[in-house]
């Protein structure tokens, strides 16, 4: 069956009108804006289906927030995202990423909730093991944990199923006003809820309540131990401008737990060679399918003619034409800057304006001359784990408050990984990489970032020093990437890791904004595949996959003429010259 599909796709490809770009460039079926992981996943799926794909990337290096680079001296590390927590197994399988070189340096990594006295709680995919480490804190919490773990995983499974679906349109769903009259959108919703039906009535009620709950309230209902609640709440707030008591963060916890990596759930893995290895594998999979990836090619504008997308114009002025354009850069940039307000209904433009996109998550990458001693572990016995500093709900809440008003807390919450424990390829001198995510770091610092970087780094190191004695003495290099730096270096608008706040008002049918949640842009032939779309942030690859599936379903209309596009952009004088240049559409008929 699948080979038949491929052949048909190829036949379709051959009969399509020849079309391409100016001056000697190959012709393409699809242009993908941005070689982040979602852009590449989308490109790879499309290429696999026989489409001629060109990926254009603004930076010199592909990957966006998912890349390996020098962090100090000649030691390398994952500069931004640093763990795989659910790159969709389907995506890995469909695109053959292991075949194209994706390897794990560590899989089934545990999470260690750091305790000041060394009585750490260690999370893994085995709830009974977790319960053992909770026991010293509270016997009753230890007893309750496995049930909680099972329930959250069960709920996460529903979310997981939902993540792989295109959300229905809110508008389309109720077009007729009668719910019984199921439109395609209603069916999409029904499918999204398919797994929901297997729950007991009681679990259904609880699942729906979790959508509007805060993770803090959920945990207060469930446990007494502060360390346990702090570590679990960390997952609920990670990457979000929300505190543990903000509604919607319980959903954040479920979303983090959807991830399956290397066969375990919730899974955490470390790609060998850093996160850039994921991008390398994806790039290879695109190229192997005859796609092209062009770096240092910043798109300045999405070209629209007669109400349809015809290609892109690069910052260099070069124009590339294709009947479909899909953007892996964030929806706000895509729609407001590259497409332009004039191509949107006022209402949609207002909705896009309403996307909140100011990141609160910084990355601190340190190079250490040796591993620090971690309280509670024998030297040399430090496990390859994800370490969490979030000792209680109130501690997280307190860390959150200053970030709302353009400040940072002297006691931040953090996630720490030492990738070099498993991956020697990152350092040539037996140095260690300490990769730290610092949550609640504002994009706009009231007093400006320039004079406060040192204070910020110092408070992070001080807090970590409580758990890792003498840490300060081992630091020999590193870099701080505050959200402002992430924007500059990785083209992440607002320094937001998820391409837009994943709050309740921007989930599922409302992500990135109501009216454009089906990966379909407001202009024909334009699609969105970024983390700003459902199912959102993290290195999942699902937005790319869902968008590709959507694009493959749509009928592609060949480009006919770009006459009026030229009229609009060059003025009447040049129209005739332009016509002579690019009247390929007519020549084909």
């Amino acid at each position, binding site marked *: 069956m699948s080979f038949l599909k491929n052949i048909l796709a190829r036949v379709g490809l051959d009969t399509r009108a020849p079309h391409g770009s100016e001056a000697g460039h190959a012709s393409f079926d699809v242009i993908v804006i941005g070689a982040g992981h979602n852009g590449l996943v989308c490109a790879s799926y499309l290429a696999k289906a026989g489409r001629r794909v060109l990926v254009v990337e603004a930076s010199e290096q592909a990957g966006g927030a998912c890349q390996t680079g020098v962090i100090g001296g000649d030691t390398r590390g994952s500069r931004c995202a640093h763990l795989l927590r659910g790159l969709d197994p389907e995506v890995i399988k469909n695109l053959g990423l292991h075949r194209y070189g994706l390897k794990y340096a560590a899989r089934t990594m545990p999470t260690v909730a750091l305790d000041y006295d060394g009585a750490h709680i260690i999370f893994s995919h085995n709830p009974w093991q977790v319960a053992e480490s909770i026991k010293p804190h509270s016997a009753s919490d230890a007893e309750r944990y496995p049930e909680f773990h099972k329930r959250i995983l069960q709920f996460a499974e529903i979310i997981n199923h939902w993540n792989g679906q295109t959300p229905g349109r*809110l*508008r*389309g*769903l*109720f*077009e007729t*006003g*009668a*719910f019984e009259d199921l439109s395609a959108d209603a069916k999409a919703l029904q499918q999204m809820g398919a797994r929901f039906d297997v729950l007991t009535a*009681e679990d*259904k*009620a*609880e699942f*729906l*309540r*979790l959508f*509007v*709950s*805060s993770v803090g*309230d959920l945990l*207060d*209902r469930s446990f007494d131990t502060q360390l346990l609640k702090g570590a679990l709440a960390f997952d609920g707030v990670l990457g979000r401008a*929300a*505190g543990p*008591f*903000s*509604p*919607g963060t319980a959903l954040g916890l479920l979303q983090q737990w959807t991830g399956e990596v290397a066969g375990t759930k919730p899974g955490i893995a470390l790609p060998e060679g850093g996160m850039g290895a994921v991008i390398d594998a994806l790039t290879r999979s695109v190229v192997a399918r005859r796609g092209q990836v062009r770096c240092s090619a910043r798109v300045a504008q999405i070209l629209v003619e007669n109400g349809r997308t015809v290609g892109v114009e690069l910052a260099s002025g070069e124009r590339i034409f294709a009947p479909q354009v899909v953007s892996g850069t964030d929806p706000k940039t895509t729609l407001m800057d590259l497409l332009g307000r004039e191509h949107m209904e006022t209402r949609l433009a*207002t909705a896009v*304006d*309403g996307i*909140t996109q100011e990141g609160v998550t910084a990355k601190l990458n340190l190079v250490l001359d040796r591993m620090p001693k971690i309280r509670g572990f024998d030297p040399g016995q430090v496990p390859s784990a994800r370490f969490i500093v979030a000792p209680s709900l*109130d501690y997280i*809440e*307190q860390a959150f*408050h200053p970030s*709302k*008003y353009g400040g940072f807390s002297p006691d931040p919450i953090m996630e720490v990984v030492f990738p070099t424990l498993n991956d020697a390829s990152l350092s040539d001198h037996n140095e260690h990489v300490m990769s730290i995510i610092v949550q609640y770091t504002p994009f706009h610092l009231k007093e400006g970032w320039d004079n406060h970087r040192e204070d910020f780094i110092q408070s992070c190191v001080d807090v970590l020093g409580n758990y890792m004695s003498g840490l300060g003495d081992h630091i020999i290099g590193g870099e701080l990437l505050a959200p402002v730096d992430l924007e500059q270096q990785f083209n992440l608008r607002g320094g937001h890791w998820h391409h837009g706040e994943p*709050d*309740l*008002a921007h*989930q599922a*049918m*409302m992500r990135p904004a*109501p*009216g454009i949640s089906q990966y379909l842009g407001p202009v024909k032939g334009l699609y969105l595949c970024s983390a700003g779309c459902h199912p959102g942030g993290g290195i999942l690859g699902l937005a790319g996959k869902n968008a590709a599936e959507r694009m493959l379903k749509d009928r592609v209309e060949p480009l006919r003429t770009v006459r009026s596009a030229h009229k609009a952009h060059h003025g009447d004088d040049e129209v005739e010259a332009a016509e002579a240049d690019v009247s390929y559409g007519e020549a084909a008929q």
Partner: protein
Amino acid sequence: MDRYDVIIIGAGINGLVSAACLAKAGRSVIVLRAPGNASADYTAGWRGADGFDFPTPASRLENFPRRLVQDLGLEGYGLRPGAMQSPALVSPSHGALVRDVDHNDMVRRLREISSHDADAYTDYISFITRQKRYLNQFVDLNGGAMPERRDLLPLLASAGQDGMWEGAHLAASSMKEVLGRRFQSEALKTLLFATTLGGYFGGMGLGPMAPTSATGLLMDPCSLGEDAQGLGYGPVEGGGAALLVALEKAAMDLGVTFADDTEISEIVHEKGEVKGVALEGGQFIETSTLIGDVDFKVLFLSMFAWKALPHDFVLSVAASRNRALVAQVNFVLDGLPEISGLPEEFLRSGAPLFVMDDLTEVEQAHDAWTLHAIPENPPVEFRFHGTKDGAEDGAGSRNYATAYVYYIPGDLAIGEWSDEHKIRLISTVVNRIVGVSPGFEKSLIDAKLVLPVDYEERFGLVGGHLFGANTALDQTLFNRPNPEMAAGTMPLKGIYFAGPATAEAPFADGLTGLSVAQRILAEPRRGPKTQSLPVQWTRALVNRIRLAS
């Protein structure tokens, strides 16, 4: 042994509405009132230094269904709904702004500040009115059953294609986002936020920057316009007490028995069915239908031999959040304060005056509250009650006012509320008012602080939360106070809950009482039919119970 068709524990608005409605339908009803809750106590809110009774917080009854006023003939019992009032904001940085109840007046007023905001306001009001109409399908002011979870989608569908996503988006958003996107004037944004504080939003326990906080805008009493089905914004003459007195009189005339100063020993049940109530002192009143108009934690955790109730149910009751966030300071003054930027009549009208700077300041107050600390600049709602001439004892005339203070935690992280903390809070409130009314401190004769713990004691509400449980979305509609109880799953047959933590309660006073009565009347009558007791007999019973306790 006495037997009634229905026993009602507690005589708040809902309990009395149930009592009157059931008695009207021919059921024999007895209302058990705890010590301190007898008829005469209704008017005693918080006794001031010179005998003035400061009203309880439930003095704003904008959503008490008009239908009940008519059906029970409450105006015949002296109920006088007040006129709609126009609240105002005084912000130290952004000046004073009145929220005219009359839409055209408000638009004219705004036009002087910003024509953008004047237009945006008209658009906003029609938006909120539209959304409120959808919400009204959930909250039937005629007391119909609340919709269940599975009714949700078809109900939302009736909102049509545009209303649908507007509504979902609004419900998920924060106040600050929604107001910030529409308006330019800080004063207007703050005022529109402030008018929601006394209602549903004030029970949520969220700040204006929290997701879902914008749902509070749907309960903005000033946006109801012609759709309003309740009494409207404005105190009933005599406050909530006047409503209670009118309801009590109506219930008595309909044959309801009142037993005062009763203390419940235990709700007796057998084979999963309610059998009656045992009182302290040994009396037993038999029934097969019992309504609790008390805090649900009190009802289920202290009126039962609770080990007899299903364990999961008890846990679920205990896990509901009821973190209080309102306190009040009652002032006795020897002069009428002048508020900068507002005419004298404004205060005299008794309309609420909000003293707060902007939404950021409010969010900061909420931050402190989350961490169980006293906020530095809590939002304050100032209300003037009236003047008493000092002819009798030679003293000058006295004025009475209350400042409701928001985001005040019930418990402090650092320990008990000490006198020092109380004094600090009072001076914080006084200073806020002095900031907009210079010289206020000179007219001050007395200031008394009422904390959540005092509400707990006075009204029997655990934690002192005036809604009985927080009204955030995870505890609203079919989650209120928890999914089990919202779905009507009660641990026993014949038990009904009509306290403040029901699905209907945050939306309209008295609605729960009506809806419970209708549910009971819809069910086949249980137990042997009994006659209402004659009034004389009732008095004797009351005396007996009193003597015994």
